[in-house]
């Protein structure tokens, strides 16, 4: 069993004993971003203090070392998701990754009346790119019906698939309700009709083993900062046979071999074709350290720990009078709720006043309220360093949440 108390000693945000509103910080907004262990911060500093250089640019040792670090990080990413390094593109994050799928693949392969299948609970980043593609190509957006709990079931996906379906874009784990979707089954069904699957892995890859070969997805997007890495780095996995069919979205320095006055360009093949411009090298150094840190702990240990802690959190949260938990049976460490008579954001402010960081509102999934029947919710989300004591603190504070104006007057 993973020792979260020991692990916390690796994180400056814990060892620096950060206070919020005079209270010890209880950070329960890990679905938004995660804390960084010292090794990640050190790796970033090392790049700037000892190893600064650009990549792909020079014949000197420092540049070679940067190239090696980028290649090593790509390999670590590939290992994590069971891909080949040449299938992994560095991006600025999940949003950029999904936009590349939209503009490098969907824009060129979808036509009028083709269908993109998404759901009402997708994050804005897995919705708006498809809206744009729909406007540009005339293809249609179709929604998988959610079941009573808000899950995306394979059965409902199969019902929604037609011979017009060309792309299915779904999160493996929803960022509001935290249900795990059967992406493997969906990919099989999609491929039977010739559709591709773009999987939003922002909430799954940091928390569970995600194997792109086993899932057989065509695209997988995720961010470093939700898995102890820096902000501004992400990954787009593209299945090898699809990679060759894509056109670059951004072009310029670093993504071409040569070009001539007649506008003939030889672009690099593989991920580098999509990495025009200077990469976020400090971010990749930090991500490298984060990937090693997670590997050392073991992704399966992380899943087990979080799922146990989630069960504990559910048991405790349902003690709170007037609390509606919207995702009691979900798998992921995301707990979404409201307290009777208290508007979500007012509760969030109250928790802030007690040192507890949660997310409130719609969590970027701005169509989900249609399903939930409430305009806003409070979301507490855990990671492998979250402790039972922090859950207890949340629960005990929620029990006095009716006095939410204490945030201003106490």
């Amino acid at each position, binding site marked *: 069993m993973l020792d979260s108390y020991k692990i916390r000693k690796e994180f400056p945000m814990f060892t620096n004993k950060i206070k919020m*509103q005079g209270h010890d910080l209880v950070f329960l907004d890990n679905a938004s971003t995660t804390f960084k262990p010292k090794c990640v911060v050190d790796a970033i500093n090392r790049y700037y203090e000892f190893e600064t250089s650009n990549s792909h640019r020079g014949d000197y040792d420092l540049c070679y070392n940067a190239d090696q670090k980028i290649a090593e990080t790509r390999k670590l990413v590939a290992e994590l998701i069971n891909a080949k390094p040449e299938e992994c593109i560095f991006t600025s994050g999940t949003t950029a990754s999904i936009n590349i799928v939209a503009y490098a693949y969907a824009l060129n392969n979808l036509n009028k009346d083709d269908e993109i299948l998404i759901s009402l609970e997708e994050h804005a980043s897995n919705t708006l790119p498809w809206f744009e593609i729909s406007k540009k190509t005339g293809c249609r957006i179709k929604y998988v019906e959610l079941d009573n709990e808000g899950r995306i079931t394979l059965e409902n996906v199969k019902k929604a698939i037609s011979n017009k379906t060309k792309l299915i874009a779904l999160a493996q784990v929803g960022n509001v309700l935290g249900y795990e979707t059967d992406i493997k089954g969906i990919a099989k069904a999609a491929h039977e009709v010739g559709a591709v699957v773009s999987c939003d892995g922002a909430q799954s890859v940091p928390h569970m083993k995600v194997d792109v070969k086993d899932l057989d997805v065509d695209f997988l997007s995720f961010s470093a900062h939700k898995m102890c890495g820096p902000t501004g780095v992400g990954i787009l996995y593209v299945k090898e046979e699809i990679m060759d069919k894509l056109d670059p979205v951004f072009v310029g320095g670093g993504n071409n071999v040569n070009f001539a006055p007649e506008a003939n360009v030889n672009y690099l093949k593989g991920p580098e074709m999509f990495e025009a411009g200077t990469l976020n090298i400090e971010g990749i150094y930090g991500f490298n350290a984060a990937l090693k840190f997670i590997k050392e702990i073991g992704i399966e240990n992380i899943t087990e720990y979080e799922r146990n802690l989630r069960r504990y959190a559910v048991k405790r949260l349902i003690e709170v009078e007037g609390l509606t938990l919207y995702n009691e049976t979900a798998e992921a460490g995301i707990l979404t709720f409201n307290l009777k008579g208290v*508007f*979500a*954001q*007012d509760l969030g*402010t109250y928790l*802030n*006043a007690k040192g507890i960081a949660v997310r409130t*509102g*719609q969590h970027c999934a701005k169509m989900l309220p249609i399903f939930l029947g409430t*305009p*806003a919710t409070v979301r507490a989300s855990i990671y492998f360093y979250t402790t039972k004591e922090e859950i207890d603190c949340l629960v005990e504070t929620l029990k006095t949440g009716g006095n*939410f*104006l204490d*945030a*201003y*007057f106490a």
Partner: protein
Amino acid sequence: MPISLSPQMMRQIIMDHYENPQYKKTPANKEAFETLHMASANCIDDINVYALVKDNIIKECYWDGVACTISTSSTDIMCGLVIGKSLEDAKYIIDQYNHMIHEEEFDESVLDESIVFVNTAKQAARIKCATIGWDALEDIICNHHHEK
């Protein structure tokens, strides 16, 4: 209204305006009103503010939409405060309110019940909620002058 108002009374005023807002409605003749839509990316707040201006006086002021306690209550109090005021006086009140919210010196004498938001800066993330309706009215006033 003195700033020495007890915290208990302040809470009561906020809750009264939240639970029973007096000016929360879309006027039937909304075309006659100057309207501004305001929405926040961070909070749920998504409101319209309506002002009926005649002869430089705010004759009527309403708001409608989805909003949290702080924005509901602060916008509702604002509506009551500016009705019957000239645009210049209303602008003065808005300025004083903003000074208060940002913990600067302010003229308490014109703020009446809106003084209950004096502690908003304690929860900096909510300043936007406490000012969203006020910002809308300020824009309406500025646009009104501009149109003239």
